[in-house]
């Protein structure tokens, strides 16, 4: 359970001025059950758009997404999301934030609390249950976000650049931590990032996206053994994967960069 198939996904936005932006143009991708798939692409290539369609928050212009063979028509039980900017409820403690999805599913108070404590512990936040988000650091907030998504026991976990706001050191720490959690809970994970090292270190496969219109350029398999630790970063296999992916991504990053320059010159 937890297989995702995207078929010819297209998404065109129309800006308020009536300009059409083709964000996704024919995404075909299959994510296997319990696979850790990283989606890698430059900023603005449509990663978040793709994730919103898979989670059911947005509808595609054309094409469809199947989860376990059934088309996605809206948010659904078996999919949980970790957002780019935490999105914790400031008025709920860490535990109550984690309980949110369970409360929405009508679980009893005691059961919810138990689950929340368990997942906070898995996320390394034992003892911080009763803190409010403003009393937590950025990394801790994101761990609450991860625990909140895990607590509903989804088959699929969608993560949109969850570590994007962290500094380089804590970032690697959290990557390792995430792998530890993944080895423990085994879900299908779609992890979005624009960081090559992160994608290769975490993923079973890395889907590289093109920049505008967004398509899947190539899916690269990463057969580094699990469980992985940061030592993997120093191996020759890692280095060769890294340069292979870098060659794929380089051109797209250049296009993204030029688009940004153009926008600066012509004033977007």
């Amino acid at each position, binding site marked *: 359970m937890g297989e995702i198939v995207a078929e010819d996904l297209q998404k065109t936005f129309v800006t308020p001025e009536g300009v059409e932006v083709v964000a996704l143009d024919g995404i075909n991708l299959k994510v296997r059950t319990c696979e850790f798939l990283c989606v890698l692409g430059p900023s603005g290539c449509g990663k978040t758009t793709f994730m919103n369609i898979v989670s059911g928050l947005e509808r595609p212009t054309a094409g469809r997404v199947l989860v376990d063979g059934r088309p996605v028509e809206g948010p659904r039980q078996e999919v949980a999301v970790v957002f780019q900017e935490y*999105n914790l*409820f400031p008025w709920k403690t860490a535990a109550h934030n984690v309980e949110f999805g369970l409360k*929405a599913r009508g679980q009893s108070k005691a059961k919810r609390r138990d689950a929340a404590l368990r997942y906070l512990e898995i996320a390394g936040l034992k003892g911080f249950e009763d803190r409010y988000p403003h009393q937590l650091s950025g990394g801790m907030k994101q761990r609450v976000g991860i625990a909140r998504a895990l607590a509903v026991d989804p088959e699929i976990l969608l993560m949109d650049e969850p570590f994007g706001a962290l500094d380089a050191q804590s970032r690697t720490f959290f990557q390792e931590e995430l792998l530890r959690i993944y080895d423990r809970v085994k879900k299908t994970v779609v992890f979005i990032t624009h960081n090559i090292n992160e994608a290769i270190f975490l993923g079973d496969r890395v889907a590289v996206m093109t920049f505008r219109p967004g398509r899947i350029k190539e899916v690269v398999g990463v057969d580094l053994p699990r469980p992985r630790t940061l030592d993997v970063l120093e191996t020759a296999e890692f280095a060769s994967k890294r340069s292979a992916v870098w060659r794929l991504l380089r051109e797209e990053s250049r296009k993204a960069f030029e688009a940004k320059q153009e926008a600066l010159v012509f004033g977007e």
Partner: protein
Amino acid sequence: MEAVLADRKTPRRARTRLTPKACALELARYGGPLLTLVLLWQAMVWWKQWPPYLLPGPLEVARTFSSLLVEGILLQHLVSSIKVLLLGSIAGMAVAIPLGFWIATWRPASIFFNPIVTVLQPIPGIAWIPLAILWFGLGRTAIGFIIFLSVFFPILLNTITGVRTINRELLRVARVMLCPLWMVVTDVIVPGALAYIITGLRIGLGYGWRALVAGEMIAATSGLGYMIFDARNYLKTDEVIVGMATIGLFWALVERVLLKPLEQRTIERWGMARAAA
């Protein structure tokens, strides 16, 4: 890492509990400056030697205060005022808050009510007194109506702003979690708008209290405003000042034991507003 995390101290609770010691401290903090004011007043009385009906001294007023208190008259008027205030403001909140939610979340309601609110809102509650007397006669209903109107608009406008400024992303979280509508209201919209709603309450209740006193001077037969006005008719200036002081002191008390703790327990605790120094 755990050690590093544990080292981050829990931020000190901004909340000050009402222990006897804290009460004494608070009293001293208020007492000092207020006493200075009273001394200045006494100095004025000694210096100018005005007749008591123009400006009675603090001691005289204090005497009247205690005798009015002992006779129960002061309390009777205060309770009468509070009753009307409660009635009017509860009715105001009960209408303004749901209406605010509705206007903020449903565009047609916003389009319809926006012009109406814009025109009615600047009319002060007291300007409605003539109509209120015509419609309801002298007495509590008329005053209650004035309070209702005074409380209504600040709460309505703040509720609308509060709901509109809720972080959209949090609503998306609720959506992916398949959150039922009632829970979106209780767990996302109400707490998300609470900071503004409380501000609305603060402003609204303050307006209501002022409007109440003004209304009672004209349209009532009891209450603090009535007491002040009645005392003036008999040139009992000391009673006038007692009434005024009661109005101010009572509101300071409401602010301290009701409104401030409400903020401390909610938005300050959630880190949604800076604790006032």
